[in-house]
């Protein structure tokens, strides 16, 4: 079991045309290293596993106050991978093709007696639901089974940290969901901290206690799921995690008569939007400063025909009023994309040249609101769901 910190990583690596300088801590948790391909995620894992040697920085394991320096460029420390006791499952899994499932799993247990190895194998085979497959060769297994063998093999040596590199990309949907569940279960049952690399937002969302967003070799934000997906620190993070609506704006005023704390009015095209952010992360909120607004496609509220529409697209008017409707916009559907149970629409705000808004709405709501009948309708961008971000430098 681990307490709050398990690993402190500061990995500096310079390659031709690419530089990595990633700093983050892994606690007693599943930390997802999320980023596009080529962002340096895999390189970071390899450095921690010890199979790639960084050019600078330090990597320190800290398990229950028991500190082990694995790498320190200043002190000239570089512990060999075979002495690190860190479980490493690469994207290719790298199952040993000439060894059976059982031989793969017990590969790291050479020092133990044959009966001890047999016991360990039995335990791990049961844990990973592989019991009938012990004599198979890797090529005789399905994708999900291979994945579980790779996990079992890494767990056999009782690693102090488990590194998983894009573990589920080659698997089909149901298998992938089952294995995500498995990883969470292993983490919770065995208390082993997990650092998992992925470029898949669903995977990051499903697995992570915290997410570190990495891009071009730099960690841009580390936060819990809500922090990253709903409150990204910058436009780039919002783009990476797939926030559908990123609206460029200019600060008009901070606060307004009778408004709550954290109210900011932002000009978005010709419209003024009220944003309610009690703890804004953007430093520069002086009028005229450029900011970006983030809003998920499912966070746009569609108003019923009977709803009063009192706002005249001037957000400051009804700003603080209880039950008042700020940020109500008349829109027209420009494009409709039907999925099985959700409907995505591009909405063009009326009377303005602003960019379209992306809306995602459950199919039942789409029909209940009669959107299939209405050419024009009103939506509300709720002030507390709009999020202010720093514009990219």
């Amino acid at each position: 079991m681990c307490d709050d910190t398990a690993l402190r990583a500061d990995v500096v690596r310079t390659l031709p045309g690419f530089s990595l300088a990633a700093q983050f801590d892994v606690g007693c948790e599943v930390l997802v290293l999320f980023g596009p391909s080529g962002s340096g995620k895999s390189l970071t894992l390899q450095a921690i596993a010890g199979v790639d040697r960084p050019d600078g920085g330090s990597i320190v394991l800290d398990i229950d106050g028991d500190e082990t320096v694995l790498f320190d460029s200043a002190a000239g420390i570089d512990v060999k991978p075979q002495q690190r006791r860190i479980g490493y499952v690469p994207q290719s899994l790298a199952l040993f093709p000439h060894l059976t499932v059982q031989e793969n799993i017990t590969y790291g247990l050479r020092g133990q007696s044959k009966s001890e190895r047999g016991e360990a194998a039995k335990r791990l085979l049961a844990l990973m639901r592989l019991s009938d497959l012990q004599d198979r060769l890797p090529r005789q297994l399905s994708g999900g089974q291979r994945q579980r063998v790779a996990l079992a093999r890494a767990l056999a040596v009782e690693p102090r940290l488990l590194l998983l590199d894009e573990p589920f990309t080659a698997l089909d949907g149901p298998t992938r969901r089952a294995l995500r569940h498995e990883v969470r279960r292993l983490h919770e049952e065995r208390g082993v901290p997990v650092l998992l690399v992925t470029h898949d937002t669903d995977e990051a969302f499903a697995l992570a206690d915290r997410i570190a967003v990495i891009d071009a070799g730099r960690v841009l934000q580390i936060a819990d799921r809500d922090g990253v997906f709903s409150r990204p620190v910058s436009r780039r993070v919002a783009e990476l995690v797939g926030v559908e609506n990123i609206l460029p704006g200019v600060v008009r005023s901070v606060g307004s008569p009778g408004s709550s704390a954290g109210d900011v009015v932002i000009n978005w095209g010709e419209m003024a939007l009220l944003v309610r952010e009690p703890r804004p992360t953007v430093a520069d909120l002086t009028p005229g400063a450029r900011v970006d607004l983030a809003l998920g496609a499912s966070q746009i509220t569609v108003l019923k025909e009977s709803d009063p529409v009192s706002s005249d697209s001037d957000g400051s008017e009804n700003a603080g009023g209880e039950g008042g409707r700020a940020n109500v916009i008349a829109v027209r559907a420009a494009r409709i994309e039907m999925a099985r149970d959700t409907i995505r629409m591009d909405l063009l705000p009326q009377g303005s040249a602003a960019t379209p808004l992306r809306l995602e709405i459950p199919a039942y709501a789409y029909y209940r609101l009669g959107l299939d009948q209405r050419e024009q309708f009103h939506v509300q961008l709720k002030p507390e769901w709009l999020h202010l971000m720093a514009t990219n430098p």
Partner: protein
Amino acid sequence: MMARAVPMRALRTAPFGSALIWASAAALVLFLVLPIVALFVEVVPNGGAWSTINDPVVTDALRLSLITTAITVGITVVFGTPVAYLLARRQFRGAGLLDTLIDMPLVLPPAVAGIALLFTFGRSGLLGGPIEDAGVSVAFTTVAVVIAQVFVAAPFYVRAARSGFESVDPELERVSMTLGEGELRTFFRITVPLAAPALLGGIVMTWARALGEFGATIMFAGSLRGVTETIPLSIYNSLQDDLDAALVLSAVLVAVSFVVLLIFKALLRRSPLSPAAGGNRDV
């Protein structure tokens, strides 16, 4: 294990009549096979020839060839394996040059190799002088036979071993190390078993080349019965006075070569490079 049936396909490819192709193919095959047939036509019904199999000329040559080629293979594996691994895994300046130098003996005429060795290890050679001063003579001894064989045959093993090592995914070695196994253990538990078909293939080819070595040996080691007269040299020497012995030894070499080729082809089919052996990545 998982041989797959490949359906015969007859795609139209050549713009000229197939009769011409068949005829030229038949001519070449005939040309390649005919000398071997001729040899066996001469030797099989020849009872006199088979009785020479116990002649000291023949047995001495057989024994010497077996011993020297075994030593050659041993030396080649011990010294060739690290070089092959280095070439397969590390990128370093001069790798291309090293690769070319190692391949040189493959294209060098054996007679030239013999002279080159003479000027290296001979009485007045580059290293021969100091060795001679120490009271050791290399040229025209059994040691010289082994030196000549290693020189011409080792590149076959290094080439094969290198491609064998290259076919092993380095990720497997990395994972092995994270599981607590050091570099040497990883090499013997992962790399060698996976490269084994290529390594064995290289050993077989090296052995076959060493067994047939003639030119460099006769120049550098001479032809002394029981000391430096291996099978090919014995065949050459017997040709004048003891044709039967030459025939039997030739037949032995042909048979050995054929078996070697069969083994080699079988190993190639089992190599990790071939799809039938099954990789680790196919899903």
